[in-house]
């Protein structure tokens, strides 16, 4: 393992950016409310995601990160509505698609993984069944072929005893294993874009580091892009090339991760950076971020 040894996340994640895969502009999402003007959860949000890169969305809880992601998937909770904006994915304007065409995008071209691995797998079906359902549907594979691919996928995300896991129900797996399964599922139809909404927030520190490492490997594919959502600047710094800082539904700052970390322009960004726990309480801001990155690595002594 690469424990402790820092790469240079502050300047460059070492990735090469390709063409623009996702282009969001002027995105505004509102929720209807009774006897009140609608609640604006996402307000005029715009950013671009190039192939081969990881773009982070960071902000405190309730700042509109998830609703931005859900809007891209066109899966807003009931009452929520995209009131304006454009979302272009691989040249296709998503907001103009018919529902059926959009559904074909989900899972196949754009995959999403959610925060809580304990609740995002169907408790009544085996892992194998859930993984193959998706491939049978999108890739028109038969069950056997899908099962073979599921086996390979689970191996590729570092799951041991693959056949046993395929026959297992979600409750029989640990949180870390489930998140690996969910990631494997998200990759099963080889999507171009992966949206990860707080994928490690519900996991404990050791497991979190392992999952981040896995996502890092996935990000190495130059054809793919990842939108990585987190409220934790430390994790963003570890994972992303560019970052979008959100506050109350608006983007307050955006730019390459290293630049935003070293010279945050907006006071909110500075406050967010200040909120990173500093184990050693060293003087410099950069050092605190490094500490945080250190803390996300496996800590043999801690557990």
């Amino acid at each position: 393992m690469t424990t402790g040894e820092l790469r240079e996340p502050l300047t460059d994640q070492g990735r090469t950016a390709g063409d623009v895969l996702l282009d969001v502009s002027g995105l505004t999402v509102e929720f209807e409310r009774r006897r009140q003007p609608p609640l604006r959860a996402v307000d005029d949000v715009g950013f671009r995601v190039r192939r081969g890169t990881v773009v982070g969305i960071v902000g405190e809880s309730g700042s509109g990160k998830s609703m931005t992601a859900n809007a891209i998937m066109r899966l807003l909770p009931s009452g929520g509505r995209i009131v304006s904006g454009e979302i272009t994915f691989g040249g296709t304007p998503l907001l103009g698609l018919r529902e059926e065409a959009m559904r074909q995008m989900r899972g196949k071209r754009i995959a999403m993984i959610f925060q809580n691995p304990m609740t995002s797998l169907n408790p009544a079906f085996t892992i194998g069944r859930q993984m193959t359902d998706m491939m049978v549907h999108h890739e028109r594979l038969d069950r056997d072929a899908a099962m073979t691919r599921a086996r390979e996928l689970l191996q590729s995300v570092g799951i041991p005893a693959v056949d046993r896991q395929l026959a297992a129900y979600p409750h029989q797996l640990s949180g870390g294993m489930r998140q690996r399964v969910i990631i494997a599922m998200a990759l099963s139809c080889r999507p171009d874009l992966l949206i990860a909404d707080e994928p490690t927030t519900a996991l404990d520190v050791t497991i979190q580091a392992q999952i981040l490492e896995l996502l890092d490997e996935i990000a190495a594919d130059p054809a793919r892009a990842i939108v990585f959502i987190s409220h934790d600047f430390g994790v963003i710094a570890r994972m992303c090339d560019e970052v979008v800082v959100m506050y109350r539904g608006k983007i307050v700052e955006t730019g390459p991760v290293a630049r935003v970390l070293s010279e945050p322009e907006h006071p909110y960004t500075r406050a967010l950076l200040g909120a990173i726990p500093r184990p050693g309480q060293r003087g410099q801001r950069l050092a605190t971020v490094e500490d945080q990155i250190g803390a996300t690595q496996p800590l043999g002594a801690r557990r």
Partner: protein
Amino acid sequence: MLAGYVARRLVGAIPVLLGVSLVVFLAMQLVPGDIAKALLGPLATQETVEEFRHYLGLDRPLPEQYVNWLWRALHGDLGRSFSSNMPVTDLLVDRLRNSAILLAGSLVIAIPLGIAVGLISAIRRDTPFDRVTMGATLIAANIPTFVFGLGLVILFAVQVKWFPVQGMVDLRGEGGRFDLLKHLVLPAVTTAIPPAAIIARMVRSTMLETMSQEYIKAARANGLPERTVTLRYALRNALPPIVTISGLQIGFLLGGAVFTEYIFAWPGVGDALYKGILSRDIAVVQGAVLVVAVWFVLVNLAVDVINLALDPRARG
């Protein structure tokens, strides 16, 4: 593992049934007045009454009466009906068969109807269909049987004469399945509507609850078709409470069809119970209540076994 569970549950049901039998037995002791006297009528002499009490075993101490009654009940002897002079067991077997026909008829309506209406309401939440059906189910779940049953009779038996007013068979006709079916429709609908409404409401609420779960959101994000998401991913997880509530309704239906059986002169267990109470036919009442209680225990057991089979956690 399932077999072991069933065995354990069956053993566990024994104290419940003993308790029920004791309550049934004691409740009949609370009936005011002397039963022997009541049965023999006002002209009987004191001597005859005493003799009859002795014949019935009513002069024995209560615990002894109970043990004797229970012992005979365990051997299939529930005593004799005073009013018809038939062995209660024979009478109840007949009644049970008739009740089973009515029960089957109403289940065939109640369960599919309840599930279908509940599902559609959940999927079309807050649409006019949902609002209207939920209003209707609220009324249907609480409507008194005789109001609804008599309403059906007036409409479909008296006004348009599609179905017979009463009974299980047409005494002047040739009988047969079709005749029975024709007689079955109105009572079956009458008994089916309240449970169907209750099941529909339960299906709707558990489906809405399930559809708000994150794995449903995830299934949608994976691009699974809406039909797969609702009918396979969501419904499968909503099943246990639906099985439970349906089981409860099935449990109630046997004894709860009293009014329906009365209105439609359907000679089932409920009708026997009702008439038994009116004529103080103790043995019939005891037997009928016991049958209803055993049925309830069995249905409950079936519900628990099905839910256990549905729960992947139980498979270890």
